[in-house]
Every structure is written in structure tokens, then in C-alpha cells.
């Protein structure tokens, strides 16, 4: 059995290592403590990292808990970022924007907005793990539904879809 302080350190270590959000149930199972205790410690970590001397933070989203940098330090991180990103094409970005705001969304719905076929670009986005299938829509033809993934959040530095600018309600 871990001391509470060790437990907190262990959670911090797990959050650090995980590159994507972790579920609170999974975390509590891995540590062998209750979900309740895990949640309390996570809250402590969140408020500690929220203090201004820290450049990183712990955030909670629908997908779980994750550690990431604070947005205000983006320039310094970007200056030192060596990861060679394969830039996404305009077609891919437009398709992603539609999926992000309209999800879950079908291919015909995306095509209606973009005015072109998107099968190829959509398959590429699924292959790269930026978009995933999520069931079928209950309309004739039963088209697949698509949603964005944790990898989407990673690539665009988003903690939740609320980080994206609001789309005007009236087109």
C-alpha cells in the first residue's frame, strides 16, 4: 500500500508517461486505490499545477486526464519543437474542421458542405488516427459516422473541443 504522497507521485508519473488522456477507472485500477481517492489526488495535482510557477498543467476532459503545457508558453515550446510534422493538406484541414464541429458526421454530410468527394481524404485521416468511425447513422444507406480522436487533440494542441473558436450559429 502506498502512502498518499507516494500515490500522488505515482499518478504524476503515469500522467507524464501517457501521451494521451487516461481514464480515472484505469488509473485507480493501476494504482490499486479507489476511484474516489484517485479523483481527490487528481484534483490536488490540477490545482498545484495551475499555480503560475508551472508551465505545465493537468487537465480533465471527456476523454480523461492528461498532462500538457499551458497555452501561454506556446512560443517557447514551438521554438524548440523538433518533431517533423507531416503537414496536413488544405483538403484534410477542411474535412477535419467539419468533423470537429459537426461530429458525429457522415461522409455525405461532409461532402455536402465541401462540395467535393472526400472518401480519399477521410480514409487518410482514419489511417493517421485523427478521425475514427463511431457507428452508423440511422438513415437510408446507414452511412458510417465519424468523430475526432485524442490524436486530433494532440496534433492541434487542444484540451477540449471548447478550445476551438465558436462557429457562427447562422451561416
Amino acid at each position, binding site marked *: 500500500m502506498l502512502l498518499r504522497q507516494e500515490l500522488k507521485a505515482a499518478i504524476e508519473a503515469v500522467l507524464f508517461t501517457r*501521451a494521451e488522456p487516461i481514464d480515472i477507472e484505469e488509473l485507480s485500477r493501476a494504482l490499486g486505490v479507489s476511484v474516489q481517492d484517485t479523483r481527490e489526488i487528481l484534483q490536488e495535482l490540477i490545482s498545484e499545477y495551475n499555480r503560475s510557477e508551472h508551465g505545465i498543467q493537468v487537465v480533465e476532459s471527456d476523454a480523461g486526464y492528461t498532462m500538457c503545457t499551458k497555452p501561454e508558453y506556446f*512560443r517557447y515550446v514551438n521554438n524548440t519543437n523538433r518533431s517533423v510534422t507531416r503537414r496536413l493538406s488544405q483538403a484534410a*484541414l477542411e474535412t*477535419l474542421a467539419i468533423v470537429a464541429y459537426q461530429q458525429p458526421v457522415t461522409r455525405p454530410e461532409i461532402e455536402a*458542405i465541401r462540395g*467535393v468527394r472526400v472518401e480519399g481524404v477521410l480514409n487518410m485521416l482514419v489511417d493517421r488516427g485523427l478521425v475514427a468511425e463511431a457507428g452508423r447513422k440511422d438513415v437510408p444507406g446507414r452511412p458510417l459516422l465519424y468523430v475526432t480522436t485524442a490524436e486530433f487533440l494532440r496534433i492541434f*494542441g*487542444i484540451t477540449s473541443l471548447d478550445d476551438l473558436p465558436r462557429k457562427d450559429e447562422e451561416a
Partner: protein
Amino acid sequence: MDYQVRLEAFEGPLDLLLHLIEKNKVDIYDIPIAVITDQYLAFIADSVEADLENLADFLLMAATLVSIKSRMLLPRRKVVDEDEEAEEDPREQLVQRLALYRQYKELASHLAAREEGEEPRVYYREIPADEQEEVVPVEVKLEVSISELVKAFQALWQEKTDEFSYPLPQGDVDVGEKIAELLQRLPVLPDAMVFQDLFWDVHSRREALALFLALLELVRQRRVRAVQEEQFGCIVVGLQPEDDSPA
């Protein structure tokens, strides 16, 4: 045209239209449809060699534009009854599509800026190369729920039952066939047919495209002539009389 832009430079017909609207410095909510249509048609006529996969969507829009243009030229019906809704501007639907597409185009450029780190954003930890290997599914945790499973099954049965109620599109429609069909259907000038009437019994986008391509080809070969009779404002098409070819 005084500028050189290739069709491939545009993401699709809506993108090309937005470009033309911007270039002409006109309001998206009051598009001078005749001017824009002419420029649009001139543009795709120059790009007819481009790959057909893309061209299909551009041509479909061309048909839409031509149709709107001719409807704009029709005298507007006067609204007598107050209760009756005012007649819709023929451009209405297109304007809505353009406005919506423009929004997503802006959102896409916002995403691009985030991807490039040009705007405030968070960064997650890079995954070290050795960990990446390790992370390759040793144990894959499947994320799925029982209700999804049941839904999938029920829907399959549903589909099986409904199998014959939704006719599926039957393969590709042949442009050559459509050319033959047009040569048979079109009256010989001076008799002619209204452009839109050609599309009345067309049921799929592919078929509409094939028909439009066939028409373009016949116009190019000068076997068909498209005439806009100002009196009525409609575009009419008819066969060029065979013995009447220009000397």
C-alpha cells in the same frame, strides 16, 4: 483570363466560386450571377484536361450556375397574396452553401495555425522513439459498449429487411451513351429545348454529370448550339442542322 490559376489550386467548386467572388470584390449575399457564371465556365473550360475525378464536382456546379442564371432572367412573379411567401431568390441556396463553406475554410486555417504553433495552444509530450515501439499494442484495450453491439445487430436485420426498398446507383453512367441519347432527344434548330428540362428525369449526380459532359462535348464539336433567347431568358439547346454547317 488575365491570371493563371489551375483548377487543382482549388479545393472544389465552392472554393473556386469564393475566389471569383473575392476577385470581383462583390458581396457574397448579392452575387452578380451572370458575371460569375461566365467567369466560372471560362475557368473550367480552360481546365477540361484536368483529372475527371475532380472535374465532376466542378461541372455539377456549372450546371447549377447556368440554371440559376436563367432563372434570374425570368420575370419575377408578383406576390399578390400577403400570406404567400415571397418567391425565393434563385441564388438563396447557393449563397447559404457558400457562406457555410467559407466558415469551415476559416476554421481550417485556424487549425493550420494551431498545427504550426502560430497561435496559443497546448503541447502534449512527445512520444520517445523507444516507447513508441513499446506502445505498439501489447494489450489492446477495446473501447466498445454492449449497446453499440446490439444496435449494430438490430440495424443489420433492419437493413436486410429493407434491402430492396432503396435502389442502389447502378455503376457509372457512360458519357458516350449520353451523347447518343442527346443526339436523339434534342430537336433540330431552330426548334430547341430548355436546358433544365434535360435534367428533369435525371436521378443521380453521376448521371447529371455524364449528361452535362456530353452536352459540353457536343457544343465543342459544334453539333449542338446553346442559345439564350433574351425574350424569355432561358437557355435553350438544339442540334445544329447537318447541311447547315458554316462554309
